[in-house]
């Protein structure tokens, strides 16, 4: 770079050379480009590929119709799904069921979650800590535990096995609509998902300055008017984002409808997707996946339209202002008791029932002589469950336990660090197209239902491509899919955490001569510790109870606790199912307790950031 007047051509070359160097030296660019490649390969490419397969003839189609011409364009698969004699059962009924379940669950969760959030954050209700602790418990459990508990109570003779508690006590067979299908699915999902509303809306409410409310009441507004005109509009963005979160979760949920819906042929898109995959209708399954994605996208789009510029409300709120609580007057104690009782009934009772069940030799027989530890650590007995051993004795259980812990542990570490790195790109690269691209693309897995994503990954990683080995059947694939599926959340949390850290802190280190890696390791990582631990915790809990994402990917070698539970549940080995559920819960609660204690993780903050 000497100051010698250089010929024009050489100067141009130097300039180009320096330009490239500058571009690469910026971590946002170099890491962002790598991140974008990764995202493109793990998210965009599979979606495009799957979309492509729905438009071409497959080799197998030759057997179905003479018109098939493998490798060429066709709308055959789409017409088959959308307009053929099987469309009603394959597509229209499931999709209507999905939408109905999604809308009802969102509405119900909204009512439960918001009222609870309001009670806990804005009123003088006693037992606040207990109530909010109880409210988080369902989140720590897989949603289908509630289904399992539901069946224990309300099962009727339809699917065989021993009847539920209700029938054995009252000797009345509960009607099908109460035992299976829409009603129990909606109830289990709502109980599980209302915690999201509770946390998201609770966060918005608690950061709202109560002077806003006071100003309204000084102006002469009555309490209901204040709620309607001031509080509601302010938390509306949070409510809407909670609504779509739950809607997209509900329409793509698999475990609950599989347990409660299939006995009465109540299919949702996700369960239909799974059974199409099972019956080798892969292309039709792909079409279903795409429609499910489209619905999710449409929901998000509508939300963006609705919230749009209002989104900023949440951040307008001041901090540190004293909060004045609404007095409940004579309703204080009744409200607290009712809330705590309902929470306990929803969170604790199912657990206790399932725990008790796991010690019962025969279901539904409430006598001391019926007590057994057989299902926990008994040996093989041909009279019970066709000789299936107690869980602790079962080598498959030990393998599944090991796999589960390994997957959850590895995935949560990788996911939280990936989230932080990508979050860095998003936060620091807001001005550049790369940062925005990473932001947008990392949000995509949110739109891809778990069952669809795993379906994509089966076809992607069945055989080796380039330098990537065939991951199907390995633990690595299960970790990868967990990391990818959690990206929307981890990147959001990571970028939110990074935004909190002023660029000057990094620039100060840069001036000191620290490379990006040193800056990340010594400045950014320690400063983000709290958010990192929260993300780790959430991913870990999510992975421990994850099922729809991996159920299609597991092989006997990669069996996990959840898939094992599901296998037992499908075989009607109720007690064995319950034993493993109890173990999953114990692990989740233990990790939660340790992380909260040691890492000062904040679960509420993590979810609220989504």
């Amino acid at each position, binding site marked *: 770079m000497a100051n010698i007047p250089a010929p024009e051509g050489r100067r141009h070359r130097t300039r180009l050379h320096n330009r490239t160097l500058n571009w690469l030296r910026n971590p946002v660019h170099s890491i962002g480009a790598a991140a974008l490649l990764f995202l493109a390969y793990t998210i965009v490419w599979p979606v495009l590929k799957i979309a492509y397969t729905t438009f071409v003839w497959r080799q197998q189609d030759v057997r179905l119709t003479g018109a098939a011409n493998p490798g060429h364009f066709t709308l055959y698969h789409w017409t088959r799904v959308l307009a053929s004699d099987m469309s009603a059962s394959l597509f229209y009924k499931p999709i209507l069921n999905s939408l109905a379940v999604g809308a009802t669950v969102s509405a119900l969760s909204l009512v439960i979650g918001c009222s609870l959030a309001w009670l806990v954050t804005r009123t003088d209700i006693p037992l606040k800590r207990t109530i909010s602790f109880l409210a988080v418990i369902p989140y720590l459990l897989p949603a289908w535990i509630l289904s399992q508990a539901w069946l224990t109570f309300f099962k009727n003779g339809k699917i065989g096995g021993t009847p539920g508690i209700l029938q054995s006590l009252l000797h009345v067979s509960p009607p099908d609509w109460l035992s299976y299908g829409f009603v129990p699915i909606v109830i289990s999902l709502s109980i599980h998902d209302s915690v999201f509303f509770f946390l998201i809306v609770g966060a918005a409410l608690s950061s709202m300055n109560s002077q806003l409310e006071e100003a309204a009441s000084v102006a002469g507004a009555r309490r209901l008017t204040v709620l309607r005109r001031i509080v509601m509009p302010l938390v509306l963005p949070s409510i809407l984002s909670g609504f779509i979160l739950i809607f997209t979760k509900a329409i793509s949920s698999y475990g609950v409808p599989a347990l409660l819906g299939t006995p009465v042929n109540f299919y949702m898109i996700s369960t239909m997707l799974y059974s199409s995959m099972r019956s080798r209708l892969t292309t039709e399954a792909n079409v279903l996946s795409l429609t499910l994605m489209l619905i999710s996208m449409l929901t998000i789009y509508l939300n963006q339209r609705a919230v749009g510029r209002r989104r900023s409300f949440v951040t307008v709120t001041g901090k540190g202002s004293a909060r004045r609580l609404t007095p409940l007057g004579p309703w204080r104690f009744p409200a607290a008791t009712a809330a705590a009782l309902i929470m306990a009934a929803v969170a604790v009772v199912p657990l206790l029932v399932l725990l008790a069940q796991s010690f019962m030799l025969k279901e539904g027989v409430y006598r001391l002589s019926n007590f057994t530890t057989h299902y926990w650590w008994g040996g093989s007995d041909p009279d019970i469950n066709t000789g299936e051993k107690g869980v602790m004795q079962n080598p498959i259980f030990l393998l599944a336990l090991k796999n589960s812990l390994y997957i959850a542990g590895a995935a949560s570490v990788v996911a939280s660090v990936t989230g932080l790195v990508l979050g860095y790109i998003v936060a620091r690269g807001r001005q550049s197209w790369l940062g925005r691209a990473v932001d947008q693309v990392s949000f995509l897995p949110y739109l891809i239902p778990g069952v669809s994503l795993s379906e994509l990954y089966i076809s992607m990683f069945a055989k080796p491509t380039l330098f990537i080995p065939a991951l199907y059947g390995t633990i690595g694939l299960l970790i990868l899919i967990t990391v990818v599926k959690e990206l929307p959340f981890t990147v959001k949390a990571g970028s939110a955490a990074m935004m909190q850290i002023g660029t000057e802190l990094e*620039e100060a*280190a*840069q001036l*000191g001569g620290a490379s990006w890696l040193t800056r990340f390791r010594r400045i950014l990582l320690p400063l983000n510790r709290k958010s990192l631990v929260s993300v780790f915790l959430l991913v870990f809990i999510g992975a421990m109870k994850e099922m729809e994402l991996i159920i299609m990917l597991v092989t006997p070698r990669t069996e996990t606790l959840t898939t094992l539970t599901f296998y037992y549940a499908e075989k009607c080995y109720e007690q064995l199912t319950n034993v493993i559920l109890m173990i999953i819960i114990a692990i989740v609660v233990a990790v939660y307790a340790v992380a909260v204690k040691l890492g000062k993780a904040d679960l509420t903050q993590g979810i609220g950031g989504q």
Partner: protein
Amino acid sequence: MTAIELKDIQVRLQQKQVLDGIDLTIEQGDFITFLGPSGCGKTTLLRTIAGLQRADGGTIRIGGREVANGDTDYHMEPSKRGLSLVFQSYALWPHMTVFENVAFGLQVRRLAKADVKRSVQNALEKMRIPELSGRYPGELSGGQQQRVAIARAIVTQPDILLLDEPLSNLDAKLRVEMRAELKRLHQELNTTIIYVTHDQHEALSLSTRVAVFFGGRIVQTDKPRQLYKHPRTLQVADFIGSGGLHTNRLEGVIALESGRAWLKTPVAAIALEEAGLAALREVVLTIKPEDIRLYDRQGPDRVTAEVEAVFPSGAETLVQLNAGGAAMMARVIGDADYEPGAVLYADLRKEQMNFYDKRTGMRLENVAPIIEPTGGYAS
């Protein structure tokens, strides 16, 4: 010796021209202040020199070495430029102790542990805070944090120290204290210091030279005394005069009468040296409050003025006057006991007057009042 040489620096941020053709030479050992209102580009220039911001055009040489060239798009790493920056927010790493904060730059350079310890101790002693070494930034007061930030900047013994509004987050008392500290530090370290501020007091009292910024350009670079006495443009005069220092402005027109050039203002007509002045040119005259003397009695060259308000502030008193419909402020040392409504006689010191073209706002260097005992004024 030349420490920094800036040539035609151009910086655009989001399609907005923030710096436009900055030329500046800074000598070794200078304490130069970048002064200007917020948004004038002074911090951007500081960041460009540090290498945190890229120059889109122009060159920067530090110690004779080219560190940035906008035309070849060459930008040397900030850490290789031999300078340190103290951020406005201090940017102390909250998860590290004071010692770790200060030691960071040395550790990154892989210095031996003992050397690191010695240098850090040294820097902390220079900033007179060795006892804080084990504390975390969150446990320190604003002034202490400031000292830590400076210690961190000087521990690597940079040739150039950049300070970005370092006193703006401190309260008034601490600010005075830190000002003295910075002056001492400059004398002790003998490094080149670039100091960014929007506070005229700080700029005038600390620096050996001041560069005044407006709209992405340097309007004037001068010694503080010179800047105060002869601001080059009306804009600069107003800026220097704001914030309690105050500048009186009188508008007038040049007239050629009885073989002489006169500046006719509402207060008085002032005879000017003949220097090819065009008639009817609109001129603004500025005079500082301390250059107006007040008398009880009429005398030669005095104008009549009525007291409108009195603002005593202990050591000095500002007197607001009305002379011929024009408002003027006079500064009197000590306690002046004037009643509003009283009529006084003001002597405007002609040798301290500055004249500006009203249209361009540029100082008219060829306009000078005739300074002689009598006959300067005509009423």
